[in-house]
């Protein structure tokens, strides 16, 4: 056991220090392998960047599509409960490629409290929502585009300020070009 006698120095003395050539070669190989891993696996899976088409071949780009970019994840504070493929409904909708994101959330609101649920969507993407309340709540549903004509611009789709006391459920289908925001509470 040669190593045992070498335990004294803070950093172990290298028995044979590698040559410049060996270090340069190892560094070059490390960089080359890293680039291969990046371009064949990490970039397609993380960002959907797929210059070599290996991501499509290995279905890694599906990961990027399913999770969305980090930006999109940040704009959607609601954690996805689960995502499964859903058939696109017929009608005014354009069929959406890939899979749908499905969220659901239970909220408790105290009197005079409010909550706003926000989504950032692609232009032309569809959104289906439904909600149920166990007490009277006021609600409003609006959207605003990424490039607003002015700071306070928004388009309201639905407004109900005098929701009576009844448990109810709504199902609204909309083809949206905007950030839909559902505001609950009063």
């Amino acid at each position, binding site marked *: 056991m040669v190593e045992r006698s070498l335990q004294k120095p803070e950093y172990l003395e290298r028995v044979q220090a590698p040559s410049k050539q060996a270090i340069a070669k190892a560094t070059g190989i490390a960089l080359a392998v*890293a680039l291969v891993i990046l371009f064949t696996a990490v970039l397609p899976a*993380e*960002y959907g960047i797929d210059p070599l088409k290996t991501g499509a071949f290995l279905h890694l780009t599906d990961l990027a599509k399913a999770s969305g970019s980090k930006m999109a994840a940040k704009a959607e504070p609601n954690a996805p409960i689960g995502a499964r493929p859903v058939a696109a409904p017929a009608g005014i909708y354009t069929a959406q490629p890939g899979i749908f994101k499905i969220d659901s959330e239970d909220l408790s609101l105290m009197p005079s409290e409010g909550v706003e649920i926000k989504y950032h969507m692609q232009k032309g993407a569809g959104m289906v929502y439904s909600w149920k309340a166990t007490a009277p709540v006021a609600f409003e549903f609006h959207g605003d585009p990424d490039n607003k004509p002015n700071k306070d611009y928004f388009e309201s789709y639905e407004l109900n300020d005098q929701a009576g006391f009844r448990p109810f459920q709504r199902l609204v289908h909309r083809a949206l070009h905007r950030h839909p925001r559902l505001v609950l509470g009063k």
Partner: protein
Amino acid sequence: MQVRAFRLRVAVFVAAVLILSAFVFSAAAGAHNVSKRDASFVESNQGPAIAAFVYLGAKHMVTGYDHIAFLVGVIFFLYRLKDIVQYVSIFTLGHSVTLLGGVLGGVHANPYMIDAVIGLSVVYKAFDNMDGFRRFLGFEPNTKVAVLIFGLFHGFGLATKLQELDLAKNGLITNIISFNVGVEIGQVLALTAVLIALGVWRTQSGFLRQAFTANAVLMTVGFVLVGYQVAGYFVAA
């Protein structure tokens, strides 16, 4: 006896390479980020929550492959417990300063750029372990200073990620200190696992030869992390 020792050596080498490449694949899983479920807890939390933040800090460190990759590089050639404690303390000092200072002072940085520097720290230490600096520059930059500087960056990365979440002012200091304590606990846990693996490996006679290759693998991990983060920077821009 010879054959047995050789087989063991091969097995340990293969295992080590596998463990290191697992870092690469966990990069693809995005293990580093505070998970969405934890994020919504942090955002909805009001007031001090010591245990929860200690847990989150520890979890962050244990699943934070970039920090662990750097620490593997730092302790790779450290044998005496005294040295390990010394270097890890320097790293801890560095990242505690910027974690606490960054969050409390509200200092922001681009998280992708910070993470790219952290990836670079892995490349740096691997190159250092290969004896690259002494060979190419004729001297080895002070390892303790390098560990301190990269520690500062690692802490800044943590601070930036925590600030992406809406932290309640109520109990902020308690929670940040708890998070930091958790980070240290997680670091000790991760280091213990690394030290056990390195300890077994070092008793093998081929260690020094394999060490060179292992550091090349570690460097690869570092380069992948840099590329991953730099690409993220441009995608987000």
